[in-house]
């Protein structure tokens, strides 16, 4: 049994709060116990950096320190949270002055950033800590006949310092999808494209153009569904897609939902039933 600190970010809040329960159940089938790091806060979403970068580092030093205090590594399920936290970790690990300054603040809360916990994203956690074989064995309902387009998004591949896979030619997502029994579609240009999530509230036109390009090419490849390891990319696909003039209505899924379903959890609980763009396939 692996025990790991789970960083929820904003993606397991609000209407998505139920997803944590599903994640927990799904991971249990892989002998992984998720311990919710409930004192953690929003990572700042790579936006708080515009306010002040040190604030972003401090927030995330605190987030990481909360995992360290429990003696746990940290699992981050969102690409952006992962990128922001991993960047903060890198800054803290390489800049002693910064670390000391921030630790002085954290001490008041009885916390200290030490740099002892590894920050995992879903993809490298499945690859390095769980292993694809274990996933394969947990599958009860193989996604036979599902044509799934593998879509990474950006923040697990870029920048290089925090990439969890070969940024130019990544394979971890395909491996997982294959383990679930799906037919993987990955020979398309946009699997590392920007999903447009973050620009929806800065320059909306960018989001819509990107969705059009990505979903259009996925549709052309004949995919039944897009799978992404990032809940934000998923939201961009599922929610913002509807803002398009002519939405291609390509269903999408957050990777753990597909895993849950393949592990035998029902469609309702897996979350697959709650998408705005309906997942018809079963």
């Amino acid at each position, binding site marked *: 049994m692996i025990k790991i600190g789970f960083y929820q970010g904003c993606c397991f*809040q609000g209407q998505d709060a139920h997803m944590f329960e599903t994640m927990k159940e799904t991971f249990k089938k892989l002998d992984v116990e998720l311990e919710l790091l409930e004192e*953690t*806060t929003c990572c700042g979403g790579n*936006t708080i950096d515009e*306010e002040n970068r040190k*604030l972003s580092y401090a927030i995330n030093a605190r987030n990481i320190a909360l995992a360290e205090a429990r003696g746990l590594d940290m699992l981050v399920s969102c690409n952006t949270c992962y990128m922001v936290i991993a960047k903060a970790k890198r800054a803290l690990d390489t800049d002693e002055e910064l670390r000391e300054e921030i630790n002085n603040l954290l001490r*008041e809360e009885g916390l200290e950033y030490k740099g002892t916990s590894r920050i995992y994203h879903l993809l490298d956690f499945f690859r390095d800590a769980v292993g694809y074989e274990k996933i394969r064995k947990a599958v009860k309902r193989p996604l036979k006949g599902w044509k799934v387009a593998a879509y990474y998004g950006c923040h697990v591949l870029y920048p290089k310092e925090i990439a969890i896979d070969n940024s*130019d030619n990544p394979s971890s997502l395909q491996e997982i999808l294959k383990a679930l029994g799906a037919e993987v579609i990955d020979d398309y240009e946009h699997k590392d494209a920007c999903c447009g999530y973050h620009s929806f509230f800065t320059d909306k036109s960018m989001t819509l153009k990107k969705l059009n390009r990505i979903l259009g090419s996925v549709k052309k490849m004949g995919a039944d569904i897009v799978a992404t390891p990032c809940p934000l990319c998923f939201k961009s696909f599922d929610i913002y897609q509807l803002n398009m003039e002519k939405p291609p209505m390509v269903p999408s899924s957050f990777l753990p939902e597909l895993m849950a379903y393949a592990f035998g959890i029902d469609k309702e609980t897996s979350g697959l039933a*709650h998408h705005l763009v309906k997942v018809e396939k079963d």
Partner: protein
Amino acid sequence: METVKLQVFRYDPEKDAAPYYKEYEVPVEGTLLNALLYIKDNLDPTLAFRAFCRSEVCGSCSMKVNGKTKLACKTPMKELVETWKGKPLRIDPLSHMNVIKDLVVDIDKPIEKMKTLIPWLVPDPRVVPTDPMHESIIYPEEMKAYRDQIHCMLCFSCYSACEAVEDNSRYRGPFAFSRAYRFQVDRRDIETAKEKRIRYAISGGLWSCVQCQKCLYVCPKGVKPAEDIQNLRGQSVKKGFTDKPGARKLKHFVDWIYATGQINRLYLPEEVYGNKEAREKLTKAYQEMGVEVWEVPKPTKGLMKFRDIYLEILSKENKALELDFSHVRKIDKMVSDIFKADICTIVDRAHERGESAKGLIGKLKELLGGK
């Protein structure tokens, strides 16, 4: 000798009706530039590409390998073969610029775009002596502010890889913002020039950057344009250019994270675009599916101490926005209205019980007598 096949983009607009790929077998040795020079010297002298210093200081030889932007002289062939598992390597010219011939693209457009951002020092006579025999004093500490940006060598790798250039032709390009930002943090540069740069940056697509981080990845020199763009956005907001969706988004983040430890995605459309309908529609859609929708995020455990840290940093640091305490009070009120209790009580009592997520709002309300 180990070899690999390169499929090289060829196009001479005078002769060829359309571009095509020509295959060459090259040794897996040295860098990609070595491979191209090998082709030129031994296989095909007609192949056109730019190269000059061969030691990653001139920025001439950027191109794409299987769609990924690389500086040829900095890319070991071994690494390429490992990444692509010995498969043929497709060599293309950079994106977003017109092809002049083969791997040579027209870089005048990005240079012209860059020029609009005043990427040069406009000396402040109060700091920079007009007497040419007088030295201007610059402390090593202050030079740290632009130590990465000055490495830009105009290779246009970031321009090629940029997701914003892709969808906004006016967008100036990552490098252009970095080169402009370098002067924004130089004490010798005059304030009026700094304000102009911000205005031009905004009209040049400052808020169109999608923060994909690809520019950081492809930069052969460790420049971090996406981060400089964040810095420029912060500067623009600080200078009062707040009438932009992005500025309002920033305000949302700054206030909500302080107030609750979380952002509130449900309220973003409203606070950024004044779109109230979006929240109602989304709420309804989810409720119809039987998904519980929270009006406000669950305030983080230990929120009060978190607020202390947050304020402590903002009080000391240079920042884009002041915390809007009236907004924070409104958020506090929303939280206490929903839960019928003040924010401190909610946080502490909710966490004491170690509630699970499902149905939390209902349980909370019950617990706190807010039925």
